[in-house]
């Protein structure tokens, strides 16, 4: 069964681009456009991984990260932060908040896909 990825971004074009790219690599996709929606969708859809933007309406990416980490049923879902923000100020903060990786937009597609696959490999390792 193919893995399901929740794409959280308030920019419709970027959601669409990520969708095309991920589906071409065999992933299923679901979407959220703001912070509140992200938590809702995470609970409802139980994705295998979350691609999270930081600058979001209704609770920014850090708030979403915290909410997810504080819910035992969601805490194990790997989160990759994908943001236009400066890595110098945000990468460490995101990792401290429990994200698995931080990539600054625009990121090369092969780098992002490798990051996603690596997250799945590590995730499988921890559970198994």
């Amino acid at each position, binding site marked *: 069964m193919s893995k399901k990825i929740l794409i959280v971004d308030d920019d419709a074009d970027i959601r669409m681009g990520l969708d095309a790219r991920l589906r071409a690599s065999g992933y299923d996709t679901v979407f959220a456009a703001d912070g509140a929606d992200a938590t809702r969708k995470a609970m409802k859809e139980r994705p295998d991984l979350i691609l999270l933007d930081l600058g979001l309406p209704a609770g920014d990416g850090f708030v979403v990260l915290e909410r997810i980490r504080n819910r035992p049923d969601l805490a194990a879902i790997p989160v990759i932060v994908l943001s236009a923000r400066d890595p110098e100020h945000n990468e460490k903060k995101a990792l*401290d908040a429990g994200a698995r990786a931080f990539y600054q937009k625009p990121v090369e597609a092969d780098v992002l896909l490798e990051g996603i696959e690596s997250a799945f490999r*590590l995730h499988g390792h921890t559970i198994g």
Partner: protein
Amino acid sequence: MPETAGTQSAEPVRVLLVEDDPADALITTRMLPKSYQVTHVDTWDGARLEIYSHHHDVILLDLGLPDVANEALLAHALSEAQDIPIIIMTGRDDSELAVQAVRLGAQDYLVKGEFPQDWLDRAIRYAIERATIHKHLEETQRRQLELKDEFISHVSHELRTPLTAIHQFGGILRDEIAGPLTPDQKNYVGILMKNVNQLRDMIEDLMEATRAEVGKLVVTPTALRVEATIEETVGGLHQAATEKGLTIRTELAEGGARVLADDGRVRQVVANLVTNAIKFTPEGGEVEVGSLIDPEDPEFLRVWVKDTGRGIEPAALERIFERMHQEEDLEACRKGIGLGLYICKELVTRHGGRIWAQSVVDQGSTFLFTLPLFSVAGLLYPVVFPLDAHPNETVSLVTTRIRPLDFNATVPIQTALLDKAYEIHSDAVLRYGDALFPRSHGAGLSENFFIVAATQGDGVRSLVNRLTRAMARIGLDSVNAGFEVTAEVIEVPISGETDPHSRVRAVTEIVLDATKRSRSR
């Protein structure tokens, strides 16, 4: 008008009079308005104590004091008086020195016995006023730079969003996810992607240059095998060189010199210089990247990037590392905003190295920079010979090894996580007596940290415990990677006791051996 400490508030003006001649001191004090609060000291040592313990609005300084040489006094005074304005009180015979003093940063000078009574009061008020204005000006400039930094950071973030969409869909077309392309379409999308990436690099350069300006460029040096770094960076640019019909080769120092440098920053500098070399060298040319121990200073490694391009005019050679400098070649300079070399210079300087260029027009250019070599013996010296204590008979080597949990992982452990781990280590070691090795950037995926601690017995145990707990707290034992902290006690050979250097050298060899062993495990 900005508010000043003395002239407009009810507080009395506080004067620190530094004068070793009691008669001169008395005359000067009498010339001051009664409302002024005067503290008189007759040595520079006394003045220093006053500056650090009480607030003063102005310093009246006689340049001839018993405890400091005349020439050195002003330098001391200017650096230690912080923001307090200084008025030089001088004799008739050394007015030359006083003029010099004003040039160096003193507010004013008065020749003793040669000015009307009210001049002194006026000089003091003006000096305080000028110093206050100067302080406000500096504050405003600093604030302006900060605003600029915030502005650039905001703009760069806003530009990145539409750029990301263009980048994404360009990539989707290029990779034929949306269907096959004709050869022409493929070519055009390639050009589109090349330009999008240039735009992305320009935004990044703009951010970096602004960071450099406000002193926020972060450089985290590690003990780095720089040849591998250079080799990889050049490897990544092979295709660009080949596409332009250039050959590119490396001529690196043998033996794998280790420098104290930030891996990412060195990559940035080398990539920038090599990209420039490729850009300015015509088809059939050659780019050479090399390194050797600096012939002018054996404590540095010298790296060079040499091309057979069109060269740089001598006049331009001096200005080439300035901000916004561009070579006057329309086709070539369209590809940058003239910040690359400025950033390179900032980065190299931040490492303690220097950067310069040599060129002959129509024959080519060579860009050279230096990086400090990493020395284990230098780090170990204070451990074996602690300050104000007997030499240590043993040294404890505490090693933390970090490795990815997934041995098949092709993605290295997140740099930020390793930075965090390094931070934990630097918090845990003692400032005097322990030596924390810079992060060792090992080959492959396992990263090692080495600490040498002079603390004996229980001290080392507790250090290991503290490290283990702190590392587990950042999730290093489960999320991305595992870690292991071990302690090993090394006997310091006492055969060379009379010679501290040979003793340190012997310990260095043992430690290096031990680190090699733990690395190959």
